[in-house]
């Protein structure tokens, strides 16, 4: 079963993280993360999206993947933390986001 999910997650005291993902049988097939946060180096966001492919859409697995991304790349977020990315992904819902 394939489903398309999305979320607009506002990091507390920080920026907006917008997630659009495709999920197949509980596993992330592809994900696009956008928003008004800062991440240096900028190219690393697509690495994060890539790392999340084939990760089960569950807290433990998503958190592990994102924590690994930050420790492996030494990417620096501002207005967004590893935890915010986790929360944004986990809050993705099937119904269209009220824009």
């Amino acid at each position, binding site marked *: 079963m394939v489903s398309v999910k999305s979320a*607009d*997650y*506002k990091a507390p005291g*920080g*920026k*907006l993280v*917008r997630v*659009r993902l495709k999920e197949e049988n509980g596993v992330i097939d592809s994900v*696009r*993360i*956008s*928003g*008004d*946060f*800062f*991440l*240096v*180096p*900028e190219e690393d*966001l697509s690495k994060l999206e890539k790392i999340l492919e084939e990760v089960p859409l569950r807290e433990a697995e998503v958190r592990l993947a994102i924590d690994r991304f930050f420790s492996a790349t030494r990417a*620096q977020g*501002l*207005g967004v933390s590893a935890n915010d990315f986790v929360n944004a992904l986990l809050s993705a819902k099937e119904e269209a986001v*009220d*824009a």
Partner: protein
Amino acid sequence: MKETWRLVDLEYRDDPFMNLAVEEAIPRAVGEGKAPCTVRFWHNSNTIVLGCFQSAELEVNFEACKETGTQVVRRFTGGGAVYHDSGNLNYAISLRKGHPLVPESDLQSVFLKLSEGAVQGLRSLGMKAEFQPINDVQVDGKKVSGAAGSIRWGTVFHHGCILVASDLAILGKVLNVPKVKLADKHVASVQKRVTTVREELNRDVTTREVRDAMVKGIETCYSVSLEEGVLTRDELSVSEELYRSKYSRPEWNLEP
């Protein structure tokens, strides 16, 4: 002896794509040691400038852009979408990485330190401007300037825009502001949480006046002198190449 920085006023008012190409060529040259630390001032006519991580589809009201003749371009730095018009003053500061003004290489200290020139400039005009983390300059709780930046190519780069006399009604139309964002800030619309220099000072202020105040503000708070200069031939050719390969392309500006 005071350090001298280059002051560049090169702009392409009706070509936001070339403006953003120049915006990238300068920090590249500064990091490579091919150009001195530089401050640039410039304008765009009606343009939305998207942050590099933003989705054009989600952020832009293309219908309203068509009606108002607003173009859409993406910058190489993160942060949120901004609306530029001739009443908006853009500035950019490029310092070589490791410059004593910003020894820490985290973006929050860069924004704090390199927003000081704008804060100082606005204060000298009589505004109660204050830096508001993460990347805003506010007057009485309303945003008058936003900044973005990056640390790359061996450069600490900071740029910002100052709403001097911008048309906030168009700004409110062309940008889709997500409800979740406004709810968090407890205000009902983007127009209510931003202001302009003209509105705050209640007089006809030009972007040139703000630019001059900022030049003095920068010279004072960083103890440097700004000397008018131009781009090197190398910077111009890099700008043209970036224009061709990146900033003039919908793939960069609008996708995914």
